[in-house]
């Protein structure tokens, strides 16, 4: 027992901004863990996650949800998936490995990223000022995920609903990304 208590702080202090047809919200209730797939255990992993959570390995740049929708797997590389799931504790690796029960390597990435949800009917109008990939609804469908660069910042973009996108940027860039979104909103709305 020490005399000191550590308080957790989200990258953007849980910011919420509501504009006309456009909202910016920091995602604070999710964890992210990299699940690396050992070369000789691909099949084992596939059967394990199917059995434990009803999950399959998604196609590239796509995602898949567990039966209870609490875990979403994103596929951005062949030999790994990113698990995006509801969990706010300090041990995301153990929590996820317990849920998936799969022989993979787990590395916590929850604190690596600032996660910003942009949503609303004007979300694509705002994002087209900074996002170089095609966000047309029919091209970047709900569930699609991609890695790109916005305003010089490496970014993962995930479409989690019709008019809702989650942007992940390295935590240290969080303020710059938030600023970029705000400037876009100012310019467009």
């Amino acid at each position, binding site marked *: 027992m020490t005399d000191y208590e550590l308080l957790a702080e989200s990258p953007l202090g849980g910011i919420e901004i509501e504009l006309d047809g456009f909202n910016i919200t920091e995602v604070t209730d999710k964890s992210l863990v990299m699940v690396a797939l050992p070369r000789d255990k691909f099949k084992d992993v596939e059967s394990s996650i199917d059995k434990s959570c009803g999950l399959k390995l998604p196609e590239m740049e796509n995602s898949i949800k567990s039966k209870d929708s609490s875990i979403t797997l994103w596929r951005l590389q062949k030999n790994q998936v990113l698990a995006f799931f509801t969990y706010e504790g300090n041990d995301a690796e153990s929590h996820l490995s317990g849920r998936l029960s799969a022989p993979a390597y787990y590395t916590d990435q*929850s604190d690596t990223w600032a996660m910003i949800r942009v949503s609303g009917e004007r979300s694509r109008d705002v994002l087209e000022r900074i996002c170089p990939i095609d966000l047309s609804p029919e091209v970047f469908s709900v569930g699609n995920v991609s890695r790109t660069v916005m305003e010089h910042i490496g970014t993962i973009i995930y479409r989690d609903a019709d008019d809702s996108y989650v942007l992940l940027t390295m935590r*240290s860039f969080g303020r710059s990304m938030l600023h970029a979104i705000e400037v876009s909103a100012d310019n467009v709305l």
Partner: protein
Amino acid sequence: MSQTNRIKGGLINQNKTITFTFNGQILRGYEGDTLASALLANNKHLVGRSFKYHRPRGIVTVGSEEPNAIMEIGNGAYKEPNTRATVTQIYNGLEARSQNHRGPLGFDLMAITDFFSPMLSAGFYYKTFMWPKAFWEKVYEPAIRNSAGLGTLSTEPDPDTYDKGFRYCDILIIGAGASGLSAALTAASSGAKVILADEDFLMGGRLNSEKAKVDEIAGSKWAKNAVAKLGAMDNVTLMSDTTIFGVYDHGIYGALENRSSESRVDSNKPRQVNWRIYAKRSILCAGAIERSIAFGNNDRPGIMLAGAVRAYMNRFGVATGKKVTVYTNNNDGWQTAKDLRIKGVDVVAVIDSRSISRVMSIQGAEIFMGTDVVDTKGRRRLKSIQLSNGKTIDTDSLAVSGGWNPNLHLTCHHRGIPKWNEEIASFIPDRSTPPGMSVAGRAKGTMALSDAIQEGHDLGTSVAAELGYKAKNLKAASTPVVSYKIEAKWGVPSGKNRAWVDFQNDVTAKDVKLANQEGFKSVEHVKRYTTLGMATDQGKTANVLGIGIMAENMDQTMEETGTTIFRPPYSPVAVGAFAGRRRGMEFYPTRYTPSHKWSEEQGAVFVEVGMWYRSQWFPQPGETHWRQSVDREVIQTRSSVGICDVTTLGKIDIKGSDVSEFLNKVYVNAFAKLPVGKTRYGLMLREDGMAMDDGTTARLAEDHFVMTTTTANAVSVYRHLQFCHQVLWPDLDVHMISVTEQYAQYAVAGPNSRKLLEKIVDPEHDISNEAFPFMGAGAITVCDGIPARLFRISFSGELAYEIAVPTRYGDSLMRAMMEAGKEFDVVPYGTEALGVMRIEKGHAAGPELNGQTSAYDLGMGGMVSGKKDFIGYKLGLREELQRNDRMQMVGFKPVNKDDLVEKGHSMAGAHLLNLRDEPTTENDQGWISSSIYSPMLGCYIGLGFIKDGLNRKGEFVRAVDLVRNSDIEVEICSPHFYDPEGGRLRD
């Protein structure tokens, strides 16, 4: 009287008056006017002076090709020079000023140059300012520059904002005239995603300027209906006032959207948006640009292109004169005369250079066939013209048509070369258009409106089909068939009168001839020698005319003469639009460390390290110089304890059953047998044997390692490891991911560091020297169960640790440690103190790992394993890298400890010389790479490279800094200035 030249009709709103100023005079126009149409409505024909001779010049065209009517718009910092009046939509409060004159526009003092014009022919500068040679730079060039140039800059930062954006489409249609709209209608009916862009703020192209009916209604009305129909479709994006200025690789198009009207209402809104459009296909429907004919004094205000005269009348309700004449070499010129008569404007004469029968009857006009205009009169406004038959005609407006040039510029942005078409006497696109681009309508040379509509209509269908879309079976719009017939006419013999080819650059037919006579045969050379086709309009109205004159001079075909190369941008783009929002602090993003907020509260001075903001030092009350802060931080750390945020160092988690083998291959030293719970320093080389990066790697489990890299190389080392894994050794079971941002990491250094950490680390983790010795590593918990990692490593040379917690606790941990360390007088230290301590300790860093140094050069030859292969091993054995007299890293300390103290600068950057040598390149012995004032040694010290340094310890040389004018004697010594035995860090 206001708007004396205004007539009824047009597509402007004559119920909405707009007030603007021109050279300070208040004028009025109507909503929908351009600045040019409003000036003409107010009978302002003289709108500027020419570039070289300061000749009075008037409006010539009605579009972005305008060579003369370029103005300064706005005032103060908002002033923008070289703005084309022909594309500037007027607004209340617009301030326009003419350019290129000293004194009033009507009495330009510089017009005297016109009288010296016989001396100022092509190549004048090159021929005249040759002697004396020394005068060029000091006298001639400043004088020429002072009188040259188009407009003036405000010299203040541009207060407007700009933005950029990205859009995707299946089909980009460039130009919303008759063929563009027809193409858009069929393409959009297929469901394909269409972007229709037009540089005009009113879509419709020439349909807005012509009387021709389409589908039995006015062409402008048909265009308006088509635009409305397209605007209602979800799969269509309309971008008016948007210029497609460049065609780049892979179907990328540069598009500049003008949003000035929005930014005037709200100055926070961007004035322009620079779009990057990704299109699978494009259809160029950019229409055509009319050209002039080179006859004597063809540049007077009041002489305009015939199509422009028609447009000002039909679209803007402006008659360009009371008594208009038309001079043409093609049938389209006659249309101007016809339209003028319909509007009741007097047409004095129609002069056609062709010896054919008259094309049509024009009521009240004299008709001259096979006749040319050879001279004109009227300095500030046209008064009369003289014909080749000797007749003089009084006229105040001359409409000239030398034919229409397909607007094919964008087809050439991938080096396409236009080909000559005799039938329309102009160049048309060849087949080498940029990939995915098709061309329709007048841009392709299809001059008849009916054919252009059909062509656009068909292309919209066929291009959509190429992408798998099926257009609806629509009927192409119908319009009466009007043929276009022309006989090329370039120059007219004009005696001593100058016949102007390029109005903007004051190039005459005689200049072109002179260039040809002087041996300039290539069209590109003639352009550079005469300036034909340069500057803001890039010769849009002049190029083909100039080429025609060249071809005649050299008795060769147009095809043989060829064209100059069209490059982006198609029309001028403000530099601000390229910069977009990336100005000032937004030039690039910033990265903040977990302790940033806390550091701000302490008044830290920050330094940019890459994109990171790191605390450089923490000034305390009473400290007036940074050295005082840094010395204090060093002394306090070395005597008790200090804390530094080292989160920025790269951290890579590497997991898998083959990681130890993998690390063995990338580091010079062995890692295979590193025990769990231990850290090892590692040096990695590039393939060529030069040092790439260094850092420590800890083994946290049998199959789990965590590597640290320098801040600067965090990304490049990760990329290198990925390359090694994916390309060199893909069979190894290795998985890695950056955890740089996952953990907030702090160096806790100094003799009391353990005592401090014992107050933070949960008691079940024993961090005593015995349980957690130097180079120990492991997972622990802190502050009641928060997961953490602890490494006993030292950059400072003191008993030291690096402690890492999930970044969410980074700020809190910093505060907790500072609180816990109060009893030890804990001090935060910044990157300067970090640097001082590493140099005192003799650690190599960025200045030493400069890509030219091997492990041996750095004094780390002993680390290199001879028992294994690793990256850089083979090439590290090169004879050159084994030489003893290479530059080797050693330490340097001044013989006189007070040296440089008064001057207050270090030895960094000084070159090393033998004691009696002159400071010349051939005497150079090496250099000081890093140097600081050492508070522990009480003098400046340095690390550096000198030939055969490792064998020269104890020798004396000089450190000479010619930039800062210092020359001191220094002793070559061990780089380990402080605690060379390393006892302190093992305690």
